[in-house]
């Protein structure tokens, strides 16, 4: 499973990096490390519109998103 670290990055890089990984099609599951709630929302929306499911787990200031191909 590929891990994408988008902590500290400005828009639109978090969504861009995640969608690039989805398009690359190498993994059917992605883990994304996010530290910004707006990025969490944007990634969730973008992944869902690409047909991927999203689950979130929070740890301190960080959110771990697990994206799975449907």
């Amino acid at each position, binding site marked *: 499973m590929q891990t994408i670290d988008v902590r*500290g*990055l400005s*828009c*639109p890089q978090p969504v861009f990096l995640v969608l690039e990984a989805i398009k690359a099609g190498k993994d059917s599951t992605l883990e994304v490390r996010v530290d910004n*709630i707006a990025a969490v*929302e944007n990634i969730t*929306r973008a992944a869902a519109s690409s047909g991927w499911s999203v689950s979130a787990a929070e740890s301190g*200031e960080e959110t771990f998103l697990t994206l799975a191909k449907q």
Partner: protein
Amino acid sequence: MLSKNNPFATGIGVVCVGFAVGILASVLQKLGNPPNMGICVACFERDIAGALGLHQAAIVRYLRPEIIGLCLGAFLAALLFKEFRPRGGSSPTLRFILGVIGMTGALVFLGCPWRALFRLGGGDLNALTGLAGFAAGIGMATFFFKTGFSLESGKSQPSPAGYVLPLIMVVLLGLRLLYPQVDGAEKSGVLFYSLKGPGASHAPLLASLGIALAIGFLAQRSRFCSMGAFRDFFLFRQTHLLWGVLALLAGVFCANLAFGQFHPGFAGQPVAHDNHLWNFLGMTMSGLAFALAGGCPGRQLFMSGEGDTDAGIFVLGMIVGAALSHNLGLASSGAGPGPNGPVAVAVGMVVLLSIGFFCRRKS
């Protein structure tokens, strides 16, 4: 998941927020703000620069409570929903320059992207070329994003850092309360005031502050961003924010119709010029600057209220940019571009394209 946690960030939520911002902007005009200016972030930061004596353009000096309210409304929302997080360190000097250049472009056009929509919703058709330029600038930025542009990661900052811009806003509010306008006087205490022109037109303090606080609160929750609307459509074909922007336009249009503030045409529009070339190019420069910085002027204020010190630096850059624009003859007037406006756009575009080109990650 999103709708449970934050209804304002849903599609319907951002449309409602956009519509509300449009209506409230028109209401502020009805209450005394300059026509088609509503709650223009660039214009009002420029007016604050004038109120503090950073420039000497006598017709645009007023310590606008709206800017204070937008930042503090977002600050309160971020605190309330536990989203206040001091962060920064992502190329702050470049972000300052992006703020300066973004403001310069906005003052060549005469308005931020929000005002382009307010102008269009008030019937000022010159805004069409401005919006086309804005979209073109963001389109140029998408090339850089696709080829690895990044201002690199920010990091958590010491807690006091995140409070700096909200505290500056509190201090500004204190100055506004301490030194209210005196009839017929250009100065009250340390603050400058306009006796005529756009700076002399303003809604009552409490209305300006209250409405801006509400907009700041709603916009922080919805992540409303006029630049992001175009960028996300160009990059990802996502229309989430774009619907919010269209709702803003619909809101200001409907309210202007209701208040008798809709006057369609190109010529003689308030605080605007009809030089299409420089309307287009000014906003091209702004669009590119705002896109590289990751947010429109309003969004930068909201993020600074969330503790984002990089956004705070951008806001300070915009205020300095406004002062420079008026001191150096870069800003336009109703008659057309300022004497040095075209040169500023040429230089600014070279700087922006250089930033875009040289800040790409090698991988």
